[in-house]
């Protein structure tokens, strides 16, 4: 007879009822849920999506003069523009936002652990404020309030719409990166700080030479996860007039006389192109996360 867990052998869990819950430290792999889900998509999925989407409204087909073949042709005609000017702008916005948001977020995260109480509390307040605000509201506020030109010295710089959008979107990104940084730093065992202190390292040295290098790898997967979420949020800027893929799709459909048969292919294409962009990123994120777990 084999060992009976809990009686003749060590129990496999501490609690009789539930499995040991791996409470994930902040900044750790749990924030990868989004990427993991995307990464789990089978390859035939987008094709199936399009087929399903195109197959459903079979009833309405018979009634109109404009066929789906013509709609498909229209889409193909507009495709180059949609991708090179529309989607490209989405990507540019996502890169710029991530760059600014990361820089600001790292600074904010470091301020959240400052020994100075005022700095710490202000940084915390700013982080919570922008984490809990709807992204669209922030976009509206920033884009309305932002000056359309900046004067530095003798130079006048015209700020284009999409750049204002970048600043608007970088606010919530900054707040979320700040939380990632704070969580990662706080997950480094206090023994590391103590050992370094006993070796007479200054606080700044401990942070930059010992603690942050250990956190860095752990922060990359959730950072990439937020990049994917941000990219999914870039279509929001179309509501404020920025000419990215959604705006251009609508303009294209206008130019093609707004036949309702155009809606499925054009909006469907938007969905599909985002999927094809984010899916490889999600898979990469999951793979990197597996490689980069630093053992404490």
């Amino acid at each position, binding site marked *: 007879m084999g060992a009976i867990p809990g009686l003749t052998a060590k129990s496999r869990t501490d609690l009789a009822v539930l*499995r040991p819950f791996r409470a994930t430290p902040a900044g750790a792999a749990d924030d990868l849920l989004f990427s993991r889900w995307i990464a789990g998509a089978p390859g035939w999925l987008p094709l199936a999506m399009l087929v399903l989407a195109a197959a459903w409204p079979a009833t309405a087909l018979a009634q109109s003069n404009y066929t789906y073949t013509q709609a498909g042709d229209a889409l193909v005609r507009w495709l180059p523009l949609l991708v090179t000017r529309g989607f490209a702008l989405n990507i540019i916005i996502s890169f710029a936002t991530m760059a600014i948001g990361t820089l600001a977020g790292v600074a904010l995260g470091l301020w959240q652990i400052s020994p100075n109480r005022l700095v710490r509390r202000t940084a915390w307040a700013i982080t919570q404020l922008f984490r*809990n*605000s709807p992204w*669209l*509201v922030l976009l509206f506020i920033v884009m309305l309030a932002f000056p359309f030109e900046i004067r530095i010295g003798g130079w006048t710089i015209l700020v284009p719409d999409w750049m204002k959008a970048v600043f608007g979107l970088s606010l919530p990104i900054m707040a979320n990166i700040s939380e990632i940084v704070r969580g990662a730093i706080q997950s480094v065992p206090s023994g590391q700080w103590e050992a370094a202190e006993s070796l007479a390292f200054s606080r700044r040295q401990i942070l930059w030479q010992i603690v942050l290098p250990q956190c860095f790898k752990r922060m990359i997967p959730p950072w990439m996860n937020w990049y994917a979420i941000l990219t999914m949020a870039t*279509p929001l800027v179309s509501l404020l007039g920025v000419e990215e893929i959604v705006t251009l799709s609508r303009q294209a459909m206008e130019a093609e006389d707004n036949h309702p048969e155009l809606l499925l292919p054009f909006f469907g294409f938007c969905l599909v192109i*985002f999927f094809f962009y984010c899916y490889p990123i999600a898979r990469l994120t999951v793979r990197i996360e597996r490689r980069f777990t630093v053992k404490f």
Partner: protein
Amino acid sequence: MPDSLQAFFRELADTHPKWNFIFFYDLTQLDRVLSGLWMTIQLSVVCVILSVVIGVVGSWMQGSHLPIVRRIVQGYIQFFRNTPPLIQLLFFYFALGQFTPTYSPDGWLEVPIISNVGWAIISLSFFAGAFNVEIFRAGIEAVPESTAEASEALGMNRLQTYMYVVLPLAFRVSLPALNNNLVNLVKTTTQAIAIAVPELLYEMVSIYNDYSTAQNASMVVLFVVFIVLVGILVLGMHRWERAIRIPGYGG
């Protein structure tokens, strides 16, 4: 709003032309704000409830013995998670909405049976529901098979086991992630403006389109209202988490 405060805001609008808090002294505008707020709250509540139901049903289906059922659920999850929610809203309302059957109340107008609010609810609920399915599944997997087997040995069928044993335990495990998702859902309701749903953001934008001096004021109030709304939700969720915690379990 008491008269003294009304008078204050009227004066403020006169002395500082860029800060016209018109909805604090003009009752018609106040009505618009309140109706927008009410719509946001309604949208949030309905979508939260619906998305939880979808999450429960979906995670139940994911445990099914039939692979075809599992594949359908998987396909649904991947579609809604890997595409932008704004485009989902547009796709649902425009691309799919054109096929909704209509009825005619007076012989002239064709009113679709699913309005834009309806499509917003459907789209947002399915969006949040997709995340919920994963969250509940993680919770269910935290419950060991032996517990489920024990309840089956007592004679409960699969549905009863799920409802009385597995789900209550899984729920407690999933609650933190679930709360996070629900707060996100409330924030995402603002995107319904894209299909002209008259929620708070839409009403505020309408107000400052009518009264350009009210732009700064309406954005400030909008921001504050959402912070308060989300803040209340987050606090409430924390309380709830603490209240249903099983002693000795979880970090």
